[in-house]
């Protein structure tokens, strides 16, 4: 029951947290404030004429069927990437846990893709699946499947999902391996003695015990799919064909950097910011209440 402060007033703690606070202010609060302000303006590209329009930019978005389309697409893309990346990683982690020899090699190889920059990952997949030159496109063609992601929206979406998933599996794998390893061996051994097979042991013991990690990864993965996949999409499809792979973050960039519509672009990033804030709040509430460490 410590109710009184035991240290005298001192400048030191403030000095110690100052760098963190300054960084947050300069690199987060200030740009976020700018975006918020910009979202209320209609401005020409050069900033020569500026008009304060309150929520007009947001109203325009609400009436833009392509924006709503991008919303649905983002939801589909993000949940698919998160689900695929997590299930693949969990499967690999469960397998690696059972390997006796060469564990280190497997782990290292599986973690590699995480070190690849998104744009580089995108370029890699573009080369493999190029309808004219790509080796996979060629292989698909020989078995009679016509691959052309430059024209077929579903194929384009499949390709960006694959590329985005491939890159994220490594990260998830790392966390799952750590989570599985932290489970006391005695629990698993006891279950084995009771006659539970590997599958039964996984679902009855391992799976429930790694749920905190899973929830953490779910949030991280969705945030990844929302934002960090920009480079992959930019390198593979540029949002095409026919907007089939244009997710929200890509549209923010496109409308701002290509369309030079700064107000509309800022309004979109404010909405994105709101989504992240909501997701983070949900994460913390959930973790505080439901997950036992």
């Amino acid at each position, binding site marked *: 029951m410590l109710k009184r402060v035991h240290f005298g007033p001192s400048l030191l703690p403030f000095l110690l947290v100052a760098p963190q606070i300054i960084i947050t202010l300069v690199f987060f609060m200030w740009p976020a404030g700018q975006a918020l302000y910009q979202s209320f303006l209609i401005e020409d590209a050069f900033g020569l004429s500026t008009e304060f329009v309150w929520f007009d930019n947001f109203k325009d978005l609400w009436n833009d069927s392509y924006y709503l389309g991008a919303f649905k697409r983002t939801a589909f893309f993000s949940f698919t990437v998160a689900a695929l990346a997590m299930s693949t990683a969990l499967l690999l982690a469960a397998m690696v846990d059972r390997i006796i020899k060469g564990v280190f090699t497997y782990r290292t190889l599986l973690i590699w893709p995480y070190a690849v920059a998104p744009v580089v990952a995108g370029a890699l997949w573009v080369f493999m699946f190029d309808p*004219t030159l790509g080796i996979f496109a060629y292989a698909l063609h020989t078995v009679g499947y016509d691959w052309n992601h430059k024209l077929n929206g579903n194929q384009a979406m499949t390709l960006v999902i694959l590329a985005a998933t491939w890159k994220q599996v490594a990260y998830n794998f790392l966390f799952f391996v750590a989570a599985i390893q932290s489970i006391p061996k005695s629990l698993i051994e006891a279950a084995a003695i009771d006659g539970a097979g590997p599958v039964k042991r996984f679902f009855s013991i391992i799976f429930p015990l790694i749920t905190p990690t899973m929830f953490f990864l779910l949030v991280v993965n969705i945030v990844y799919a929302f934002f960090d996949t920009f480079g992959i999409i930019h390198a593979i499809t540029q949002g095409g064909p026919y907007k089939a792979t244009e997710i929200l973050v890509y549209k923010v960039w496109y409308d701002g950097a290509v369309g030079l519509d700064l107000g509309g672009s800022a309004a979109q990033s404010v909405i994105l910011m709101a989504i992240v804030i909501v997701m983070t709040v949900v994460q913390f509430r959930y973790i505080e209440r439901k997950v036992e460490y």
Partner: protein
Amino acid sequence: MKLSTYALSAVAAAALTGLSTTATAQTEIQWWHAMGGANGERVDKIAADFNATQSDYKVVPAYKGNYTETMTAAVAAFRANEQPHIVQVFEVGTATMMAAKGAVYPITELMADANKDFDQSVYLPAVVSYYQTSDGDLLSMPFNSSTPVLWYNKDAFEKAGIGAPPKTWDELNAAAQKLLDSGMTCGYSFGWQSWVMIENYGAWHNLPMGTEENGFAGLDTEFTFNNEAVVNRLQSIADSQASGLFKYGGRRGDSLSLFTSGECGMWMNSSAYYGSIKDQAKFTFGQTMLPLDTDVADAAQNSIIGGATLWVLRGHDQGDYAGVADFMNYLSTPEVQAWWHQETGYVPITTAASTLSAEQGFYDANPGTDTAIKELSLNAPTPNSRGLRFGNFVQVRDIINEEMEALWAGKATAQQAMDTAVERGNALLRKFESANN
């Protein structure tokens, strides 16, 4: 010992810095451009050559990424008051730059303010008309301009028994069929589809792409490219995909590999792909004029350009602009232009430069390389073939790309695709109109 060497070098360095500051009493002129790779080296050479001709100014070129990135960088720099003197902007950014009246310094005005001789009549009309005001004042200096041509695989033509390259769409389809009969899997393809199949198709057949003289006469322009001629042609192309006559290979120059790998026998795209095709194609190739749609017109009008111009941005010392004017004049000299044209496949911007190239025997040694100039100067440009001036056109091009992709994918008919493109494009035109009024 060590200390004294150090001191000595410090003194030397100080002396050198002193020297170099006196040497750079030169005014630096920043030039942001979007020419990567080999063309970037050529840009550096032009700047270095200009710097060697005089000692007052030093042009400093800087590569800022692709066209879109360069333009965005310049816009952002202007907002931060850090703009370069000269920025290279692609032709579809023209309306955006024009509308920024306080930001850009029109070439005619720049030349007059700097008291430099400037004769606009030496420039090719089809090139400069894209960048003139309705009063005939030049807004930006044409730098790299090209126009679409029909590239063809001479070896494949010979094998298929095609005598002369096609002149009309009917002949093009017949040639494509012969190529298929000879064992190829694809007749033809094209890139930059909005530019080639809508913008230039219109100009070539003297059809407007939009009202108000394609936007030259006013911001209240509306698109009209969903006309019968365009729709019929596109529908026929889409239908011919099934037999392999036409194959879509992606936006911009993505379909280049279809041509250079020998898969498609013909390819319509910019004359500036000359260098790339020469590097990549393992067959002999030729270029000829775009095909004529005999259902639409009896004779071709003229094609319009693509590429980029150099815009001068305001906000620097007035003295700097005399140097910018000198540099612009240097760029337009026949020698510089002829060299640039022959190296890159971009068209020369002055008549003198193309005459010089002819005198140097370039066209005799490289048959077909004058196709682009011939197309551009086929006839005096009409309001339909002078160029385009639509706001937000960068995005409009992407809209056209998307709708055409829907057509190629069989999700829409040509009529539906063009109607939607016009509708979406008009919405952007209205947005531009309201932001610039």
